């Protein structure tokens, strides 16, 4: 490796943040995984395919149809802010120069607020007592730990962009989701909520590509956006939904920039 031009202090801070996250997550996580990893024989490929590709043949797809309420709530939250947010991207199609550096900060603050919301929702799920499948709980904790990392990244980038990081769950989206959260009744409802949140996150990050003043952030935000899409694909499989249903991800559920932050 040649000489880096990043600050060693920044790297140390990133390392410390990451270690803190790791330390906070690993004890309970490890205990559950110890129970989980019983070295059961690898299932036959066709059995695995049946399980994880179930959505492709639509079997059981309609079983969870009644649970798809959280996504609608999130969309409502987005829509309610679309017209009023001073930072709404509207129909902007330009790259870079049309927006100020402050817009980068607002996008990044919105992003960290979504990540913090995801962290909080997964914690609610874990604490609810409704998650009865150990592997689901373990997956939730893995995803939650990754959302913490994502939030730390977005907060760090916010600081680099000259802004103040947003460190709380997005209050506007949370308010819209609260009735759904309060009504959670079983594990499948929690998984559906998680799927909806991951989808919203993935679409939000995609929608902001091309709108950054600092063009490097286009790739940065999708290093996270792609992972949220992976989370959504896993959860879709558990829900027996298609895991890659369309050739192009859409952004109709994206949270408008500035919502709640």
């Amino acid at each position: 490796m040649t000489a880096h031009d990043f600050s060693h202090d920044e790297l140390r801070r990133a390392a410390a943040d990451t270690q803190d996250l790791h330390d906070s997550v690993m004890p309970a996580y490890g205990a559950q995984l110890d129970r989980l990893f019983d070295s059961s024989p690898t299932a036959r490929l066709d059995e695995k395919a049946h399980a994880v590709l179930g959505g492709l043949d639509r079997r059981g797809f309609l079983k969870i149809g009644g649970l798809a309420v959280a996504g609608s709530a999130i969309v409502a939250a987005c829509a309610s802010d679309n017209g009023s947010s001073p930072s709404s991207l509207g129909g902007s199609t330009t790259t870079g120069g049309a927006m100020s550096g402050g817009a980068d900060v607002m996008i990044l603050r919105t992003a960290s607020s979504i990540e913090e919301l995801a962290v909080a929702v997964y914690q609610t799920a874990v604490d609810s007592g409704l998650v009865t499948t150990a592997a689901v709980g373990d997956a939730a904790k893995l995803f939650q730990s990754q959302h913490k990392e994502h939030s730390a990244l977005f907060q760090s980038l916010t600081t680099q962009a000259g802004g103040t990081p947003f460190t709380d769950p997005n209050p506007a989206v949370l308010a819209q989701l609260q009735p759904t959260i309060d009504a959670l009744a079983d594990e499948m409802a929690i998984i559906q909520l998680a799927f909806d949140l991951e989808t919203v996150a993935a679409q939000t990050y995609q929608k902001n590509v091309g709108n950054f003043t600092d063009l490097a952030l286009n790739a940065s935000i999708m290093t996270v956006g792609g992972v949220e899409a992976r989370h959504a694909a896993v959860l879709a499989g558990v829900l027996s939904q298609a895991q890659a249903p369309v050739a192009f991800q859409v952004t109709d559920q994206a949270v408008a920039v500035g919502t709640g932050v």
Partner: protein
Amino acid sequence: MEISESNLRSMVADVDELHREGMGDMPEQIAELHQGEGARLMGPSRAKILRGIGVGGLALAIGQAVLPFRRLLSPAYALDDAGIAAFAESVELAAVEAYKAAAASGKVTTPAVGEAAASFASQHEEHAAAFGSAAGSAATNTANPGLLTAVGAQVSGAADEAAIVKIAYDLENAAAATYIFALGALTSSAALQLTASILPVESAHAVVLGSVLGLPATDYIPGFETAAQALSPDQYPVA
């Protein structure tokens, strides 16, 4: 629930160990992507990208092929938006052909795997058409010859269905990584948006294939997407 606990177990298998390993690397990965050499790679200035040519001797595995990371930054390749889109088109068409070769090999025996492969191939075909449109006169409408040769050889040599799925898994991850790289080099809003709409789909493909293979969950659910497995336009030039 349609998925068994044992299957779900396989989706998160070895997470503990791998999470520890992954977390150990995470600060470096973040710094690499956003503050260090990765930032140069994905930075706003093409000149800045090209200045990075001398960095990095890291050997990266693409399926069974290995390429030096610095070749991603070769000055021999015109990194303009049309050129990148044309390269992406060629990669997508190679993926289509790879899936077709897999289907024709007779090694895919599980119907659900065959259905997934057909679905993914169809989506790659749509991606290719979109990139081809974005590339304009630079489009070749031809599968990337080098990639086609490399992957074709792997498909021919695959021992069984699992080996075929592994090839597809590597290819999907390589495509996703290539688009992370592209997002750091593209400048037009339309090309950026197109690439950002396709990357998550390749990532979802990788999840499906990785879980079918029973890989550790953190293999196909990394903390961050990276350009580490990106295909090089220098290693695999368009026709």
